[in-house]
C-alpha cells in the first residue's frame, strides 16, 4: 500500500527523494480521511517551504486541511493538473497527484521522517484509538 521508497510525516504527507529533489504529496490515508477532494491550494515555483510548516491546503466539501512540508527547500515544480482535477488526489494520491517538487536545502532532514513500515504502524495505532 505505502511505497517503500517514500518517507512519511505524522501529518500524512509523503516525500520521494531523488538526488537533491524531493517530490511531495499526501498519503492515501489522508485522502480517505478527507473524503471527496474538491480544491487544492499550492505555492508557486520559487517559493520557499520550511519543514513542519504549512505550504498549502486541501479542501473537501466540508473540511479544510493544511499540508505541512516534510522538508525545507525551494519549490521547483507544482502539479498544475490538480487545479482542474483535484479528484486525482482521491484516485492516485501516491503518483499522479503529487503536489510539489522541492530542491532540498538539507537532505539530512529526510532521515527524521518515518519509513513506510513505521508509517503503517503509526496509522494503525491512530485508528485503534
Amino acid at each position: 500500500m505505502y511505497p517503500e521508497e517514500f518517507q512519511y510525516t505524522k501529518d500524512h504527507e509523503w516525500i520521494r527523494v531523488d538526488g537533491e529533489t524531493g517530490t511531495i504529496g499526501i498519503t492515501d490515508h489522508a485522502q480517505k480521511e478527507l473524503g471527496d477532494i474538491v480544491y487544492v491550494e499550492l505555492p508557486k515555483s520559487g517559493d520557499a517551504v520550511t519543514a513542519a510548516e504549512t505550504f498549502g491546503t486541501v479542501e473537501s466539501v466540508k473540511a479544510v486541511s493544511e499540508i505541512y512540508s516534510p522538508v525545507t527547500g525551494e519549490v521547483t515544480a507544482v502539479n498544475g493538473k490538480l487545479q482542474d482535477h483535484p479528484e486525482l488526489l482521491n484516485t492516485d494520491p501516491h503518483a499522479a497527484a503529487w503536489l510539489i517538487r522541492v530542491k532540498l536545502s538539507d537532505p539530512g532532514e529526510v532521515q527524521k521522517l518515518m519509513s513506510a513500515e513505521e508509517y503503517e504502524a503509526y496509522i494503525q495505532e491512530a485508528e485503534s484509538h
Partner: protein
Amino acid sequence: MKEHPRHARPHITRDENLIFERSSPGKCGVDLPAPEVPAASAAELLGEDLSRQEIPGFPEVSELEVIRHFTRLSTWNYGVDTGLYPLGSCTMKYNPRINEVVAGLEGLATDHPYAPAELTQGCLKVLYDTTRCMAEITGMDAVSLQPSAGAQGELSGILMIHACMADRGNPRKYVLIPDSAHGTNPASVTTSGYQVKNLKSDAHGCVDLGELELAMTEDVAGLMLTIPNTLGIFEVHIREICELVHRKGGLVYMDGANMNALVGVARPADFGADVMHLNVHKTFSTPHGGGGPGAGPVAVRKVLEPYLPSPMVVKSPDGTYSLDYDRPKSIGRVRAFYGNFGVVVRTLAFIAANGGEGLRQSTQDAVLNANYVMRKLQDLYELPYNEPCMHECVLSDHRQAARGVHTMDIAKRLIDYGFHPYTTAFPLIVPGAVMIEPTESASKEELDEFIEAMRAVAEEVEENPEFVLKAPYTTRVSRLDEATAARKPILRWKE
C-alpha cells in the same frame, strides 16, 4: 387503525425550470402608470456612452407565471409551518402571524431612516422599548439594536472589549474560546484584530477551571463563552469563571445564542457576563426566512456602555425619543442606519404577546421537551455527556457508525418520516453529533411521533443499513453531488 410510525408521502410537485428558461420576449409582470410629463429616454438624458440598452438574459414573464413559479418552489421547502424542525443550535420555533402583520403596518414599514425624529416617534419608540425589554431580560444596563445578526453582535461586542481595554492602557492580544464554540466566535474575534486561544472542555463538556486559570494570562483580553454551551449544558461554575477572568483584568463575552434556555430563569449580568448578543430569531421567534434577515442586539454592563455602536436611541424627560450621535468613545457604526428595524418590530411583538410569564413558560417548555427527547432516545443513541440538558441535547451516531451509518444518513432517513433533520456536524467536540432542539413549539404528541421515527430509523440501521444510506426516498431530489458542485462551481444560469 393507526399506522406506526408514519412515513412521509410525496405530493404533487410540478417540475419548474429556472425563471430564465420560462421567459419569452414581450411579457412583463407589471404595468406602470402612464408618464405625467413627456418621457425622455436614458440616451437623451445621460448620453449614449453612459446609457444602457438592455440587460442581457433578464427574464420576461407575466405576473401569474411569477406567482406559480415561486409557489411551486416554495412547495419544495420545509418550514416550521410544515412540521417539527429540531435543528439543534438553530432554534426553529413558531413564527406568530400577527408579528408579520404589525411589521407590515404602513408607518412602520414605510418610514424613512432620515425622516425627522419629530415625525418618526413611533419607530423610535419601538426601538427604545425593545432596548428596555432586552436590558430587563439580560439584566444588562444598555442595549444597541444596530448589529444585523448574531455574528455582527459578536463582532461589536469584541470591538467594545478592545476599545475598553485600550482605554485602560492595553487592549491585549488574545481572546479565549472553548473548543465547543460556534464557528462565528473565532471568526468574529479574528475580524476584531484579536487572536484566538482555544480552551479544551472538561469531561462534562464544560470549561475546565484549571485550564482557564493557566490560559488567562496578562495577554488575554477576555473569554467568549456560550451559555448554556453548545452541548446544551449549563456552566455550573459560571460565577467562578467570570470572577477569575475579572480578577485577571479581562472581560467576559457571553454568546447569547442559547438565551432561549434562560429567559426568565437566569440573567447573564447576574452571573458576571459583561457583554452579550441575542439572536432574535432564536429567543424571540423572528422568522428565519431561509437564512435571514436576523438581528443581533448587543447588551452591555455600565463599564462598556460608552463603547456601544452609534447612534443610540434615547428618551428625553419630556417623553420624546431621539437619536444620540454624541458618543465620543463609541466603536462607531457596524452598519448603515439603526439596525434591522423590521425584525425588531417582530421581536417586540413577540415579547409583548408573551409577557414575562409567557417567556418563562416558553423557556420551561423548551427545556422540558429537550430532556424528554434525550431520555427517550438514549437507549438507542449514544449520549456522550450524560448530564441533564437545557434547551437541546446532543447524542451521537457512535453505535450506528459501527454499522457504517453516520449521523447525516440517519438525518436524511428522518426526512422520509416527515421531519426536518436535526443538526449533524456540530458541536465539533462530539464526533457524529446528533443534536436535537425541539423548542417550546413542539407538542408532546409531535415529540412522541418524532421519537418513534428516530427509534424506527435506529432499527432500520440494524436491519438494513444499506437502505438507510440511500435515503431520502420521498423528496423532490435525492442526495445531491456536492463534490462536483464544489469542483466545478456553476453559480449562475447562462444562456
